[in-house]
């Protein structure tokens, strides 16, 4: 199957007082139709920046100096999103790909009723009679298991955090996009609300067949919701594979370290260890592998050259000079 999104050697830079900072450094991956891809990693590894860059939603200080984001439209035409002009982009967003931002509290307009926010979104893309609009809004709200009669006339402050998150997901579905990008879709929600949102995203993807990319620091969420997982570190994807590859047979020391720090409610009490140190400053990356200062497998050659993604199994790549020695010690 042809990928719906092909990212090639994408770089993102932010202008700062101390000079440009490269937050994403040469990222390539494919997203296939109906697939769910998780971007995981610690704060500051570039995962949110990458998510924003895919839909050209970077803040003003951000730019994409190189790379391609090739998107296959419904009509089969492939466009480089980085080359779209403002008007093309405006039409692209929501109808081809939509974003659900982190912090649902802040992404709804507090002065507009849900009905009006939905109407504005639709009218920006197509003309629709009021009755059809009402039906569409009711329909997407039911899809996210909300009561349209209660939610449509409500202002955001009248809804709980979980309901707001559902409204945002409902809005992202209004124009039936092919791709959904979700940034930390369950962070800051209660545990049972989180699990309801996860179940709902599962069902919606079954029903509607969109592909999704979600950004999360929550590894268990990736285990539940992803088909494939990309671990990011210092602005790069350093391991990419099927969800079972990543959770059962990770081959990058950083992925292994992350998994070793996740507590679980099932099973015996594991010995959890943190990864020593913190992520490097993107302003002054160490030479060679950026994970080297924190890595228990590091050897002299790690300082010489930054490793690139190499295949270690079917559909599984990792960027480590010593991946043949890396094992997950968890049972």
């Amino acid at each position, binding site marked *: 199957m042809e990928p719906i999104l092909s990212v090639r050697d994408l770089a993102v830079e932010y202008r700062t007082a101390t000079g440009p900072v490269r937050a994403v450094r040469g990222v390539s991956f494919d997203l296939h139709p109906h697939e769910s891809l998780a971007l995981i990693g610690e704060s500051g590894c570039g995962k949110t920046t990458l998510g924003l860059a895919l839909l050209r939603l970077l803040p003003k200080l951000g730019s994409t100096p190189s790379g391609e984001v090739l998107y296959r439209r419904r009509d089969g035409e492939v466009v480089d999103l980085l080359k779209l002009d403002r008007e093309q982009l405006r039409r692209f967003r929501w109808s081809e790909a939509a974003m659900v931002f982190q912090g649902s509290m802040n992404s709804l307009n507090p002065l507009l009723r849900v009905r009006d926010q939905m109407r504005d979104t639709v009218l920006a893309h197509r003309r629709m009679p009021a009755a059809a609009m009402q039906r569409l809004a009711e329909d997407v709200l039911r899809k996210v298991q909300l009561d349209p009669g209660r939610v449509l006339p409500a202002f955001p402050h009248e809804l709980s955090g979980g309901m707001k998150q559902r409204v945002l997901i409902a809005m992202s579905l209004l124009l039936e996009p092919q791709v959904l990008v979700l940034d930390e879709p369950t962070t800051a929600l*209660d*545990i049972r609300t*989180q699990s309801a949102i996860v179940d709902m995203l599962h069902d919606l993807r079954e029903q509607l067949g969109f592909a999704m990319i979600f950004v999360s620091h929550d590894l268990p969420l990736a285990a*539940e919701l992803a088909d494939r997982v990309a671990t990011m570190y210092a602005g790069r994807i350093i391991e990419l594979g099927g969800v079972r590859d990543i959770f059962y047979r990770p081959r990058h020391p950083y992925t292994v*370290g992350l998994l070793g720090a*996740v*507590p679980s409610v099932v099973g015996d009490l594991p010995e959890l260890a943190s*990864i020593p140190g913190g992520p490097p400053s993107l302003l002054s990356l160490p030479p060679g592998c950026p994970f080297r200062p924190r890595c228990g497998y590091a050897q002299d050659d790690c300082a010489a050259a930054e490793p690139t993604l190499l295949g270690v199994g079917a559909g599984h790549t990792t960027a480590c000079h010593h991946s043949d020695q890396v094992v997950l010690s968890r049972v």
Partner: protein
Amino acid sequence: MSEPLIVLDQVSHVFTTRSGQHRAVDEVSLSLEPGKVLCLVGESGSGKTTTARIAAGLTRPTSGTVRFQGADVYRLTGDAFTGFRRAVQYIHQDPYASLNPVRDVFRTLAAPLRRHGLARGGQQARERALELLSEVDLTPPENFLTKYPHQLSGGQRQRVAVARALTLGPRLIIADESTSMLDVSIRISLLNVLQRLRDDLGVAFLFITHDLALAKYFGWHGTTAVMHQGRVVESGPTPQVINDPAHEYTKALLAAIPVPDPDLARRRAARP
């Protein structure tokens, strides 16, 4: 069984709001022994933070009593009250909000030391501050004394908050979602620091979290109480609450927690 350090006996707290009386904490009884861990688990609005504030002497309960080392906390006066304030320390969720942004780390740590007469002069305060920073793994400590909160990462800020809690030699630390804003790996390293404080210094912990997996990790050798709508619906030794929950609500919470295991997650999802 040793004498309990702190006992909450049938405490309730009622907030009066425009829409009527809201019983945030409803006849909660808890007890914690010296050097042990009690995890208080619940969702937003379950009353866990109000319970913690009552235990810390910050919110007077509408009814019920809190006894610390046998004395009724809300009747303490003078030196006895000061002693209680020293013995019980609170670590908040967000160190960015709980640390004074215009104080460097040294002054943050020196203020309580001086206020309580535990350090005479700058030199003594400095030595103690360095000790405390090493205690929470901020090394080399000299590098941190002159830093301001905005110059530290989230994990480092929370360690400073822990060091500050340690300044007065507490017997009980109340950690209210103190690790929930941190990344996985940093969260575990902070929990490991807290665990060491418990073992080395014999500090007891009231550990508040919405995440049963964290309660399991931090409180395995202690007890866990699950709160729902202001009430403790289940409490017992942590392994029992986690592995053999008795209350429907605890079961629902456990079932909702995602597990870092794709096959198991899919099996759980397939279950009706």
